[in-house]
């Protein structure tokens, strides 16, 4: 029980990497990259978790209540924003590549083409 949540992050990382390595479609590949990235969200939040801790927001609960680490939550927020923008950028690249080469399959792209 102590390490099982961390293994979830590892599983997400490797299942995403497997998807990237075997992908036959750029859109699928980008989604696999998002899966890899989501493993970092899971890992960050797990590292900052305190057993029995609440969210680090002291609006309804009195200050001093046992709460989880706010720093990793802030890092996860950064991570999510960067993930979204990188996904948009990669999709734009794929769109233009598809227009030039007519394919979404990385294997069918030749070097220095498209």
């Amino acid at each position, binding site marked *: *029980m*102590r*390490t*099982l*949540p*961390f*293994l979830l992050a*590892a599983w997400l*990382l*490797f299942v995403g*990497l*497997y998807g990237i*390595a*075997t992908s036959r479609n750029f859109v699928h590949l980008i989604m696999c990259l998002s899966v890899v990235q989501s493993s970092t969200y899971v890992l960050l939040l*797990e*590292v*900052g*978790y*305190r*057993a*029995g*801790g609440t*969210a*680090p*927001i*002291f*609006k309804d609960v009195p*200050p*001093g209540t046992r*709460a*989880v*680490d*706010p*720093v*990793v*939550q*802030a890092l996860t*927020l*950064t991570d*999510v*924003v*960067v993930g979204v*923008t*990188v996904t*948009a*950028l990669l*999709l*734009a*690249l794929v*769109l*233009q590549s598809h*227009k030039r080469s007519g394919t979404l399959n990385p*294997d069918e792209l030749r070097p220095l083409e498209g």
Partner: protein
Amino acid sequence: MSVRTRLALFGVGAAAALALVVWGLSGIPGFGHYGGSYGYVLNRVALPERHATNVVASVVFDYRGFDTVGEEFILFVSVMAVSLLLRIQRDERERPPRDRAAERTLAGTSDAVRVAGVGLIGPAVLIGLYIVAHGHTTPGGGFQGGAILAAAPMLIYLVGRYLTFRRLNPIHALDVGEGAGAGGFVVVGLIGLVAGIAFLDNIWPKGQPGSVFSAGTLPVLNVSVGLEVGAGLVLILFEFLEQTLMVRGR
């Protein structure tokens, strides 16, 4: 490289990486046994120091504010890059979609989608503004609220025609909004420098903890980020829709 060789290579690399990851994970404190010190310190000092009940927001916009400037510009540059990549190329031109087959008519948007969509536009704007304005007191903030605000133009697209969407979304105003959002953050930071203290130092009046007007620079920064994220996401959506619906090859 054949698929088989690639898989074999991946297998070797992944096995080695997996061993490293498992070795690393076995050394960190167990789940729930938080081993850091920043979490304890911040949860104790953030509320008295910054009068912000949302400690995550005070980390993002204050204690780690300088990093958030960098993050904001990652967003800004990506939106610019998407616009640049999806500009109309030399051998393309803009043309409204026209169905080639004369006898085929596209099914229009169903009434159910229209009614539900129209009903959701107002609440999306309201919830977005609420989340932006209360980011420093309750869960939320500029990034989250901006994303919700960007849903409103998407709903307009969903319930109407694309050309209506295009008219209702003045691209230049969105560009200005995005730039103002990114620049506003830096300007707030520079005010600290002008006052003779550090960049982004929170010296503004702190107010009563838990109220909308509290926590000094935090609400201002949240509004600025909300503007940037909302405008940026709509710009990205606009570029992709433009590609699908308007831009045609020669």
